[in-house]
C-alpha cells in the first residue's frame, strides 16, 4: 500500500516508548506474588431430568396461573352484572306488585293517601 510505505518512510517502526530497567525480567515474579488464591469455583450441578424440564414446568405453571386469573376476573365481572340485573328485576317486580295492589283495590290516589296517613297516625298513637 502506497500510503503505508509513506508512513514507513517517514516514521519507521522504531518504538519510541521505553520501560524501566529490568521491568519485563521482574514482571512475572512480581505478578505471581500478588496473584490471589483462586476462589473456589462453584461445583457444577449434575444435569438431571428435572433440570432439563424445569423451565418448561415453570412456563406451564405461569400460563395456568394467568388463565386462572383471567377466569376469576371474568367470573367476578359476570357476578356483578348478574346481581345488578337481579336488583333491577326485583325493584321492577316490587313496583309492579304495588301497582297491581293499588289497581285491584280500586283506590284512587286520595284514598291511598288517606290510607297511608291513617296508618302513619295509628303508629304514632301507639308510641
Amino acid at each position, binding site marked *: 500500500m502506497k500510503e503505508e510505505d509513506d508512513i514507513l518512510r517517514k516514521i519507521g517502526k522504531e*518504538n*519510541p516508548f*521505553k520501560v524501566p530497567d529490568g521491568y519485563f525480567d521482574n514482571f512475572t515474579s512480581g505478578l*505471581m506474588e*500478588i496473584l490471589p488464591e483462586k476462589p473456589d469455583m462453584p461445583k457444577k450441578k449434575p444435569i438431571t431430568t428435572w433440570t432439563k424440564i424445569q423451565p418448561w414446568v415453570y412456563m406451564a405453571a405461569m400460563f395456568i396461573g394467568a388463565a386462572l386469573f383471567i377466569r376469576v376476573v371474568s367470573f367476578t365481572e359476570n357476578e356483578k352484572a348478574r346481581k345488578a340485573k337481579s336488583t333491577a328485576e326485583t325493584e321492577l317486580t316490587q313496583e309492579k306488585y304495588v301497582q297491581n295492589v293499588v289497581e285491584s283495590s280500586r283506590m284512587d290516589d286520595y284514598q291511598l293517601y288517606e290510607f297511608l296517613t291513617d296508618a302513619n297516625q295509628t303508629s304514632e298513637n301507639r308510641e
Partner: protein
Amino acid sequence: MEKHPKIYNEDEVLKLLQNEETQREAFSLIVDRYSEQLYWQIRRMVLSHDDANDILQETFIKAWTNIDYFRGDAKMSTWLYRIALNECLTFLNKQKAQNKVNIDDPDARGVYQLEGDSFFNGEKAQLLLQKALKLLPEKQRMVFNMKYYQEMKYEDMSEIFGTTVGALKVSYFHAVKKIQKILEDNL
C-alpha cells in the same frame, strides 16, 4: 543474572493448567510468554507506562480468576488479547469520562504528556504519529497497532476482535490513509 529462557509448549502448559497442583506454575509460564507482547499492545493504547503496567497486571489477574473457563477452543494468546483489549477500552472510557476529554482533540491528555514523559523517546514525527493515532477510534487504533507494529495476521486479529478479515482490512486501510494525510500536512 541471566534469565534462562523457558521453552513454551502450549499443549503441555494447558495440561498443567488442568491439574490444580501445577496450575499456578503453568500460569507463570503463560505470563512469561505473553506479558511483553501484551504490554506493548496496551502501552501503545494508553501511552503511559504506569497505566500500561496496571492494565497488564489487571489482565493477568482476570485471566487467572477465570482460568477454569478457558476451554482451549481458542488459542491462549487470543483469549489474553481479548481480555487485555477490553481492559484498555474500559480504562480509556473511564479516562474520557473523568477528564471529559474530547477524543478529537489531538492535545488530549496522554498525548500532550508524552512530550514531557521520560519513557517516551520520540522526535517530532513520532509525536505527530501518536497524535494522529489518538484521532482514530479506539478499535481502529488497535487494528493499526497490531498490523503495523506487530505484523499480526488478519486471521489472528479476526479471532481476537470477532470481526471479519475483510472488515479489518478496510479498517486498517482507512487508518493508514488518515495517518498518512496528517503526516503529509504537518511534516
